[in-house]
C-alpha cells in the first residue's frame, strides 16, 4: 500500500524509491511500482536503464516491464534483445508488448525508419515464438507497428505474417487475435 501511495504521487523524486522496490522480491509491490513508473513516463528512463545493469534478474525483469510500458525509444535496443532472447516467457511477452507502443515521434525521421525496420524484423521472428502468449503479444505489437508506419512494404509484410497466423497457428486464441488485428 505504501508503494501504491508512492506511485500515486507521480513525483519524479518517488522514482528512485519505486525502482528500489523492484529489487525486493515482492511481486505485489513490484506490480504497483511498475505501474507508478509507467505513469511517470520518459523522465524515469535513464534511471531504469541504470537499473537494467544490475545482477538481480528479478529486478531487471521488472525494470524491463516498466521500460516496455513507457515506450521510450531509448529502451529500444534492450527491448529488441529481450523480446527475442530472454529465457523467461513472461519477460519476452512484456518486451514484445513494448515494441508495439514505441513513441516514434521522439526520434528523428531518419532514425525512426531504421529503428522501425529493426522492430519489424524482430517482431516477425517473435510471432513464431514457441510460447503462445509471446506470439499473441507479437501480434498485438505488429498491429501497433503497422498503425505507426506508412511504408507500404512493411505494412504488406505485416499483413502476410498475420494471414499466416490466422491460417496456421496451432492455438485458437492466437489465430483469433491475428484476425482481430487484420480487421482493425
Amino acid at each position, binding site marked *: 500500500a505504501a508503494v501504491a501511495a508512492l506511485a500515486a504521487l507521480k513525483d519524479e523524486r518517488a522514482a528512485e524509491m519505486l525502482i528500489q522496490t523492484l529489487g525486493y522480491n515482492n511481486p505485489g509491490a513490484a506490480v504497483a511500482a511498475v505501474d507508478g513508473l509507467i505513469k511517470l513516463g520518459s523522465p524515469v528512463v535513464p534511471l531504469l536503464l541504470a537499473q537494467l545493469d544490475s545482477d538481480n534478474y528479478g529486478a531487471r525483469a521488472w525494470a524491463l516491464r516498466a521500460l516496455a510500458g513507457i515506450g521510450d525509444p531509448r529502451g529500444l535496443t534492450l527491448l529488441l534483445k529481450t523480446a527475442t532472447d530472454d529465457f523467461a*516467457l513472461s519477460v519476452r511477452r*512484456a518486451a514484445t508488448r513494448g515494441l508495439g507502443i514505441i513513441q516514434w515521434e521522439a526520434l528523428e525521421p531518419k532514425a525512426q525508419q531504421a529503428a522501425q525496420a529493426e522492430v519489424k524484423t524482430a517482431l516477425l521472428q517473435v510471432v513464431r515464438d*514457441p510460447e503462445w502468449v509471446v506470439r499473441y503479444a507479437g501480434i498485438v505489437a505488429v498491429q501497433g507497428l503497422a498503425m505507426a508506419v506508412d511504408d507500404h512494404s512493411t505494412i504488406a509484410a505485416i499483413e502476410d505474417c498475420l494471414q499466416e497466423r490466422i491460417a496456421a497457428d496451432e492455438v*485458437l*486464441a492466437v*489465430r483469433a487475435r491475428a484476425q*482481430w488485428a487484420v480487421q482493425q
Partner: protein
Amino acid sequence: MSDIADAPPLTIDQAIANLQQTDDPGLRYYAAWWIGRFRVNHPDAIAALLAALEDEQDRSPDGGYPLRRNAARALGKLDSSLAVPALLKCLDSSDYYVREAAAQSLEMLGDPAAVPGLLNLLAGGVEAAIAVPDKPHLVQPYNAIIEALGTLGDWPLVPEIIPFLDHDQPQVRNAAARALYQLTGKPEYAERLVEVLYCPDLQLRRSALMDLGAVGYGPAAGAIARTLAENSMKLIALKGVLERQLCPDDFEGRLEDYAKRFDPLSLSAPAIETMALMDSLL
C-alpha cells in the same frame, strides 16, 4: 526451441530401455516421468508404463508406490485406449497418490467408461470425505475425482456432487462448483468460482482462475482480469474463456477438427472484449 531440445540427454530408445529394466529404480522412475513429459507415444513405451503400474520394487517409507504414480501420470499424456482399464484398476490402489494420478489421467484420456469406477470412490458421500489421521490429505483424492466426473460425466451425476459444495475444504468446494457447471451449464455454479477470485488466499484465487479458464466461463472475463494474481495466470484463464467464446457451445471435438470449420470473420463482441482484456495484461 522444441520441448525435446530442453530435455536432458536421454533418447527415446534409452528412455524406453530405462523403463523396461528393473535393476536401477531411480533410472526407471525418471524414465517414466520423461516419457510422459515428452509424450513418447510408442507401443513399447506404453507397454513398459503398463508394466510399471504393477511394480512392487519401488516403495516409499510409508508403503507408497512412487514408480506407479509416475507411470499413471505419464499414461494420461499418451493417447492409448489400453491405459483406461489399467488406470481404472489403479483407482483401487492402497496408495492415495496413485489413485489421484489415475483419476487425473482418466480425465485427460476423456473416456466416459471411467465414470462408474470414479463414482465408486465417492461412496459414503460428503460425510465420508474426511482427513486421514497424520496425513496431509483426505481419504480419497476428491478434487481429482470430482473434476474428472465433471469432464467425463453427464447430468445424472449432479445429485452425487452437489453435497460437496458444502465440504470444509475450499479446494473440494471449487472442484464441485467447476464440475457442476460443466454438467449443468448453470451460471450459479460458475459464479461460486468467480466469488473465490475475491477471497484473501492467493492460492485459492489462482485455482479459481484455472478452473474458470478450464470451463471457459465468459461472464467472468472482467473479474479474471481484475483479480490480484500474476498476469501470466490471468492470461491463461482468459485464453480458456476466449477459446470457448470462439467455439460453439456444443463443440466437443479437437482443435484440428474445429480448424476446418473456423470462420475467421465470426469474431463476436464478447470475444473481442476478452481479447482487449488480454491485451491489457501482456
